[in-house]
């Protein structure tokens, strides 16, 4: 058995498994909402295309191109300045009937992956011969190489540093060997392992930047180098941020490692210090992987997801990297020993490692459950998707690994598990089985990689299409149709089509105002752009919450009067484009599991600290008092901040005590104008116009009866409430 489970075999399997895990890499993000929908048939040309994605996009490297049936480019666009998850393009005014192809090149900020997405829409009649392209991902061989190099070497580095500081030195430390406290043959083996892994990691990281630049710019490596395109990626993308952080950390690790070699003769005591310190630096390197993982695009508590993933990869690194490091070090360390001495030496190291591995396995399982809970929303997500299948495979493999680890754990403490030992026996030669466990760890790592590279299920509630609200009104011979897209709280576009006698009316001056009477909230007036063909477009984030909203639309011809129509909308949260989700019970349960697992893993350490504490009455009292005071002050601070924010909001925008019940449409404005001329003609002045933006409807309503800051009342005593509201509506028209 020993012949077949050699370090070379471990290396080969490690490489194959990592390659297997990385080959099907695909992006983590997905399309949430599109306007128009894929293969939609529209009566008239849309004015704008909007595609919302589940994650932030890299603005410099994402684009959208619209082609007509002949392949001619008719429009192009990019990431919206207001929303970095929205890819949008303004269309020309004169798109004729026919099919239009939308080619998108999408670069996700979280992982730097680039996908191509092709969508189709039709103006006039649908053409079944033109197909949508769906989503394609162009794999790059370089990516497989650098991910293999970086993941394998980083895991081995973290595992080696942790094993050195927490297993080998405490178990085998010998002060006679001042440089590192371990015999030279062991330090030499460790130095070779770290040196080789570090070199591989540095080269892998350099390749990563080159490959990402090739993908972002769709350029060959020669161009990336000669035109220094890599600098643009390094300085202008999230991938570049993480790359820089990782490179700095790897250099720090390299410097510490170099100093440990350089100073091992003159200052041998410093060797152990540098090695121990490097474990912390490698923990940060592993964090850089989490910041570019599925977790970074989590719709639920993304920072919790990132920290959870970080904990996951740290424990995987300590466990898997540790098993690999032990398998590589043990043969060299045990060379001079045989018989009982060899057994005792093995037990000393393996018992310590077994405790670390057990704690890590528990944390890995708990954090894995939380990660799964982030992406699995329904039973079909678990049973009918590639992600669910891969997750199941991973669970089965981890189960096998746990069984094998358990066998090692029991064999290391036969006196403690006497009943089990009698039934199943014990492992006596640990080196071969440890290598076998290392190989199984790598298989599990492979499944972890496959899972990380498998697209997450698209939540069912995101796939539900919510139609955009639309309505048509007629006034003064105009037929006015307005559509609010997507029609939920957030950024919307307001498309208004104006026809007269069935023909589009161009050249009008059109402006819009969004009003929510129940909050007495009104936006500034928006000037709608004349997009031609009778379509006038505007956009903005005026609708900030669900509820009843009005769009006041004023139309004015060059030399004509002004017309007013008012659209009423019931804005619902269902129409909102959701990039974030509220955590559910399953997430809180999973977080509880993670905390319990971490608590359990750290319990021995906490116990050790507890033993060293001076638990005198005075100290305990001060400590408890400090903790209570800190929690109390923090909670009070949060409450005070929340109350202050609420009071500030209420001061700025208090809810009205009287709500305007009259739609400010043309009829109301006409009545209001008559009333103003008749009862309070002196009101309209520069002073009033100046004050209007700062004056609420209910104050104007009160003023019509009681007078207002220098204005006499409008004989309000003889006006009905409805007439007073007509007055208010008309006075509002003077607001700029």
């Amino acid at each position, binding site marked *: 058995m020993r012949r077949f489970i050699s370090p070379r075999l471990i290396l080969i399997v490690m490489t194959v498994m990592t390659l297997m895990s990385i080959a099907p890499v695909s992006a983590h993000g997905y399309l949430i909402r599109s306007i128009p929908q894929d293969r939609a048939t529209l009566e008239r040309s849309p004015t704008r295309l909007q595609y919302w994605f589940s994650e*932030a996009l890299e603005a410099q490297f994402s684009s959208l191109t619209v082609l007509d049936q002949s392949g001619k480019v008719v429009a192009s666009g990019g990431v919206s300045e207001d929303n970095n998850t929205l890819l949008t393009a303004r269309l020309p005014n004169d798109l004729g009937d026919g099919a239009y192809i939308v080619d998108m090149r999408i670069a996700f*900020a979280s992982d730097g992956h680039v996908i191509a997405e092709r969508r189709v829409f039709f103006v006039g009649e649908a053409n079944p011969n033109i197909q949508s392209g769906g989503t394609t991902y162009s794999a790059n061989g370089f990516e497989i190489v650098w991910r293999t190099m970086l993941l394998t070497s980083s895991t081995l580095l973290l595992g080696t540093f942790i094993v050195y*500081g927490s297993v080998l*030195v*405490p*178990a*085998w*430390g*010998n*002060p006679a060997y001042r440089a590192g*406290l*371990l*015999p030279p043959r*062991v330090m030499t083996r460790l130095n070779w392992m770290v040196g080789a892994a570090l070199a591989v990691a540095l080269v892998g990281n350099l390749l990563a930047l080159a490959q990402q630049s090739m993908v972002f710019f769709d350029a060959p490596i020669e161009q990336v180098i000669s035109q220094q395109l890599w600098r643009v990626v390094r*300085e202008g*993308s*999230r991938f570049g*941020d993480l790359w*820089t*952080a990782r490179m700095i950390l790897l250099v*720090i690790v390299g410097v510490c490692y170099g100093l440990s070699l350089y100073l091992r003769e003159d200052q041998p*005591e*410093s060797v*152990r*210090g*540098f*090695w*121990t*310190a*490097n*474990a*912390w*630096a490698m*923990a*940060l390197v592993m*964090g850089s992987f989490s*910041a570019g993982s599925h977790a970074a695009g989590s719709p639920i508590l*993304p*920072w919790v997801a990132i920290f959870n993933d970080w904990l996951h990869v740290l424990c995987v690194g300590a466990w898997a990297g540790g098993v690999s490091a032990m398998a590589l070090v043990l043969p060299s*360390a045990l060379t*001079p020993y045989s018989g009982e001495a060899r057994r*005792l*030496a093995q*037990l*000393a*190291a393996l*018992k*310590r490692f077994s*405790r670390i591995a057990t704690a890590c396995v528990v944390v890995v399982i708990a954090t894995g459950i939380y990660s799964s809970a982030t992406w699995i929303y329904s039973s079909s997500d678990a049973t009918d998707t590639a992600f669910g299948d891969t997750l199941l495979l991973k669970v089965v493999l981890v189960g096998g690994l746990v069984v094998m680890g358990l066998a090692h754990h029991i064999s290391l403490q036969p006196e403690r598990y006497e009943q089990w030992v009698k039934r199943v026996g014990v492992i006596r030669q640990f080196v071969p089985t440890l290598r076998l466990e290392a190989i199984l760890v790598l298989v599990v790592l492979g499944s972890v990689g496959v899972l990380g590279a498998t697209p997450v299920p698209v939540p069912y509630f995101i796939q539900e299409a919510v139609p955009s609200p639309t309505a048509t009104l007629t006034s003064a011979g105009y037929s006015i149709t307005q559509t609010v897209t997507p029609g939920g709280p957030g950024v919307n576009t307001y498309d208004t089509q104006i026809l007269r006698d069935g023909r589009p009316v161009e050249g009008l001056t059109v402006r819009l105002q969004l009003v929510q009477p129940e909050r007495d909230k009104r936006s500034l007036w928006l000037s709608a752009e004349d997009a031609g063909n009778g379509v006038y477009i505007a956009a903005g984030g005026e609708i900030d919450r669900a509820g009843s909203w009005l769009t006041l639309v004023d139309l004015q011809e060059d030399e004509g009067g002004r017309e007013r129509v008012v659209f009423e909308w019931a804005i619902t949260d269902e129409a909102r484009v959701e990039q974030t989700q509220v955590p559910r019970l399953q997430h809180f349960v999973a977080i509880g599991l993670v905390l319990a697992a971490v608590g359990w893993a750290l319990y021995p350490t906490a116990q050790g600290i507890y033993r060293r504490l001076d638990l005198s009455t005075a100290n305990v009292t001060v400590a408890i008092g400090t903790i209570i005071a800190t929690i109390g002050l923090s909670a009070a601070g949060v409450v005070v901040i929340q109350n202050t924010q609420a009071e500030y909001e209420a001061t700025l925008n208090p809810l009205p005590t009287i709500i305007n019940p009259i739609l400010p449409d043309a009829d109301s404005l006409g009545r209001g104008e008559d009333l103003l001329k008749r009862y309070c003609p002196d009101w309209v002045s520069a002073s009033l116009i100046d004050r209007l933006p700062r004056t609420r409807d209910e104050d104007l309503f009160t003023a019509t009866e009681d007078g207002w800051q220098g204005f006499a009342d409008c004989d309000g005593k003889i006006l009905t409430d409805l007439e007073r509201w007509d007055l208010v509506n008309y006075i509002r028209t003077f607001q700029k």
Partner: protein
Amino acid sequence: MQYQVILAHGALGIWDEVIFLSIGAIFLVMMGISWVRSRNSVLDEEIEADDGHSTNTTDPSDERFRLE
């Protein structure tokens, strides 16, 4: 003065950078502490005091084998 931002492209804007750099600073401090603590001789003295072959005890802290 326009300074080059290193780590501020995330959803939290400037907080993204603050969180990243804070974690980095904490870990670098931990590196320093580990380095200083490992250099002093406390654990070395513990190892010296140990007999080197005391694996029969149930106390894990005593499971040491002085490697030659």
